[in-house]
């Protein structure tokens, strides 16, 4: 039961809302938990046990860490001198670290097994074949939907408990709800415990403000998915599946249209997720912030899949930055080579694991690893060139705030994004390189109208719908970028205007949406990660 289906939108969600409202406030979180497991069961069947297992394991690991803290404090209170106290604290801290490591390793171990084992086994077997070594078995492993999302949430939760940022959740059921809240289990956003837990457990009564906001957000998501994304999937499917038949401008079309499709689909489904949460008064973290307004690749990643970026920043980038090897390097390099080289080395040491992990998080394929490395290289170059940018601006008399300069930077960022997505959606890394090479072969703009454009089930009217949908989304994004939130404006407007906006949105979806006979609902791309 995907979040864009009739079953979810017209039956499941209203039913959960009714049950939620009629149950006494203190028990409402239980309705959300049951709904979450039922929903998860509909697409992962018995693998729901893995989700339950993860919740139980995470719960006891966090309780264990908290127990260690309590014991440490008790023993410290009983200790006679400071030295002894320090010794006790150190000992318990090491034990706590060990428990955290156990928790993280087990959670990552499961993720590795279901998502990456076969990938590594296949590659090791290829290597082993050269040395006539024994091959690792390739296993038929069922993929638990959403595992990449809930595993990161569980690890983040354990790390926060370890750092004493939050107390361990004493109620297993409540923690289970945090890890499995039904709207976000498939596609995220990856929430921090401190962001959503209290709202989930509060059982706030439904109110018109939240219901309106949630309803509006869900419609907006459906608009993006059904009018633009689901249509573009036909074109991108043709171009990427038969990539050898296309070159030049068609490869550029493939990269650009896939990027648009992915944005409309992913941000659209996140709108549905956030809207669903909002119906219950739960404000989930945002995942997108006009990513195509970014003026650099680094800024793009602060605006695109923000919850993943935030997670890696909090739980990988910062810990690595303050880790002993990086500190040691800084001390060593600053003395020997100066500030700049020290900064470069430290950046590389912190950025590299983040981008390898980002690549791998998307899936067990070489193209994803390449995708991560691609951004690592671009971001690292950005860091390396940073000190020279000011000098360049002075020498060339460039005003960095000039609109033309901003536009140029945005355009450069688009090129980086499109190239990245070309590899991201290619049918393997080799196909990605072939497509990239073919981009520069026989590049004629006229191919767009001289009959070379691929024949798909999309017709002129479909392209008009796509263009219209993109323009509407762009206008809304443009206004938001300039601090005019149209969604909020509609919400706070007078009833006739508000209803007119809702009806317009509903009719636009029902008339111009890609649904009905002859259309295959397109699966959510990020649900597979």
């Amino acid at each position: 039961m995907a979040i864009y289906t009739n079953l979810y939108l017209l039956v499941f969600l209203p039913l959960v809302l009714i049950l939620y409202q009629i149950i006494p406030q203190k028990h409402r979180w239980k309705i959300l938990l049951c709904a979450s497991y039922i929903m998860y069961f509909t697409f992962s069947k018995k693998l729901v046990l893995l989700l339950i297992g993860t919740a139980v394991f995470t719960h006891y690991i966090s309780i264990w860490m908290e127990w260690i803290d309590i014991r440490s404090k008790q023993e410290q209170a009983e200790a006679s001198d400071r030295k002894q106290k320090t010794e006790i604290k150190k000992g318990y801290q090491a034990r706590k670290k060990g428990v955290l490591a156990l928790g993280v390793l087990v959670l990552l171990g499961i993720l590795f097994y279901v998502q990456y084992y076969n990938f590594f086994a296949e590659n090791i077997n290829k290597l082993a074949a050269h040395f006539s070594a024994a091959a690792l078995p390739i296993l038929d492993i069922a993929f638990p939907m959403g595992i990449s999302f809930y595993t990161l949430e569980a690890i983040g939760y354990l790390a926060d408990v370890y750092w004493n940022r939050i107390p361990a959740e004493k109620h297993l059921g409540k923690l289970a709800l945090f890890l499995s809240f039904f709207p976000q289990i498939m596609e995220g956003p990856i929430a921090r415990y401190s962001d959503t837990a209290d709202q989930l457990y509060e059982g706030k009564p439904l109110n018109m403000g939240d219901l309106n906001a949630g309803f509006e957000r869900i419609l907006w998501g459906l608009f993006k998915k059904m009018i633009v994304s689901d249509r573009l999937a036909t074109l991108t499917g043709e171009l990427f599946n038969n990539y050898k038949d296309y070159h030049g401008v068609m490869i550029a079309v493939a990269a650009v249209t896939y990027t648009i499709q992915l944005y409309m689909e992913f941000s659209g489904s996140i709108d549905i997720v956030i809207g669903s949460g909002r119906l219950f008064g739960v404000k989930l973290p945002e995942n997108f912030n006009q990513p195509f307004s970014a003026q650099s690749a680094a800024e793009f990643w602060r605006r695109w899949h923000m919850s993943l970026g935030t997670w890696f920043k909090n739980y990988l980038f910062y810990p690595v930055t303050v880790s002993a090897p990086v500190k040691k390097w800084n001390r060593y390099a600053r003395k020997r080579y100066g500030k700049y080289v020290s900064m470069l080395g430290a950046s590389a040491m912190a950025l590299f694991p983040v981008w390898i992990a980002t690549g791998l998080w998307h899936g067990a394929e070489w193209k994803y690893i390449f995708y991560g490395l691609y951004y690592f290289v671009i971001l690292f170059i950005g860091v390396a060139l940073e000190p020279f940018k000011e000098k360049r601006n002075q020498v060339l008399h460039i005003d960095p705030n000039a609109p033309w300069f901003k536009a140029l930077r945005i355009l450069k960022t688009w090129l980086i994004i499109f190239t990245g997505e070309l590899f991201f959606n290619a049918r393997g890394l080799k196909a990605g390189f072939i497509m990239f090479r073919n981009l520069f072969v026989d590049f004629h703009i006229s191919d767009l109208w001289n009959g070379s454009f691929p024949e798909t089930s999309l017709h002129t009217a479909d392209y008009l719908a796509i263009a219209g949908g993109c323009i509407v989304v762009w206008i809304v994004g443009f206004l938001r970028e300039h601090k005019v939130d149209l969604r909020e404006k509609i919400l706070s407007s007078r009833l006739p205007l508000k209803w007119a906006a809702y009806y317009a949105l509903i009719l636009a979806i029902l008339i111009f949406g890609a649904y009905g006979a002859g259309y295959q609902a397109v699966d959510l791309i990020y649900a597979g990660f």
Partner: protein
Amino acid sequence: MNNRYKNIVKTAAFAAILILLLLSLSWVFAPSYWYPQKRLQDGNCRIAELSLEKENTIDILNLGDSESVAGFSPIDLWKEYGFTSFNCGADALRMGEAYYVVKLALENQKPKVILMETNMFFRFHLIEEFETDVAQFVYYYFRGLRYHNLWKQPFELEGVKTYYKGYLVNQRITPYEGPENYMDQVLHWTMRTDVPSKTRYEFSQLKKLCEENGIRLILYSIPSSFNYNHPRCDTLAALAQENGLTYLDLNSEPSIVIDWQQDTSDGGDHINLYGARKVSHFFGEYLKENCLAEDHRGDSYYAEWDALVQPFEQLVEEMKGKYFGDIEQERNEALKREKEEKK
């Protein structure tokens, strides 16, 4: 009035206006307004065209999923026997959907016989079933949603007529390479041999609808090396017997000799025009022998049918060895070229 009641009234008013708006779409997206210049480019095209058929002219409805869509040619049946039929199946049709197809057909037709292909008896996926049920229910009461893609018509190129009374001409040949006695095969484990209870219930509703309208319902299994084996056909025979219906298994029917090197378009799953002509001929004989249909040839009320024979034959001649999509593409490209040259 307190806030709670105000909110309930507001929500009800919002829903009422929405329903009115959706009903008004039925006026905007009515096939009669947009047809017949350009046909609908989606799976609703058959239902739309059936709704535009001259009133009470169709005696036989052929119903089923893609197996039946590909395997029954109304124009051939007309040419040879003078029987009027319409192929109103759809790809991946489900039983719940078939019920609404018949309901829609009954709005302007009084068919005497419904030939129901049986492959859809085995199609079941709970969530997809539900999705279809909701959609069909909504489409039935809000017609505008079923035909919402008609907004695209002004932008479409002049359509190429490859549908003839719901039948898509397909002469592509991809021989079947499997064992000769495919009825002995064990189907893939995902292909069930029992009929799910939900499908049985929906079928009983459809049968009731037929009975209420005096329609003879005949079940048949089209030759398909991919979809049929003895256990499946035994299930269907038992089901037909339980319901007092005729069941014709064309896979084991000696009077139909399917040449699996010639009569299939995709290696044994679907039959092509050559196979469809054999099936249509079989039904012509069957209906004639059992006096289930009337020969309308020579009746001026049915003159349109005679007029379709020649273009149908011409299309068949033009697209020898091709799938209907090939010729649509060729024609569309030619039209595009023509337009560009004019510019």
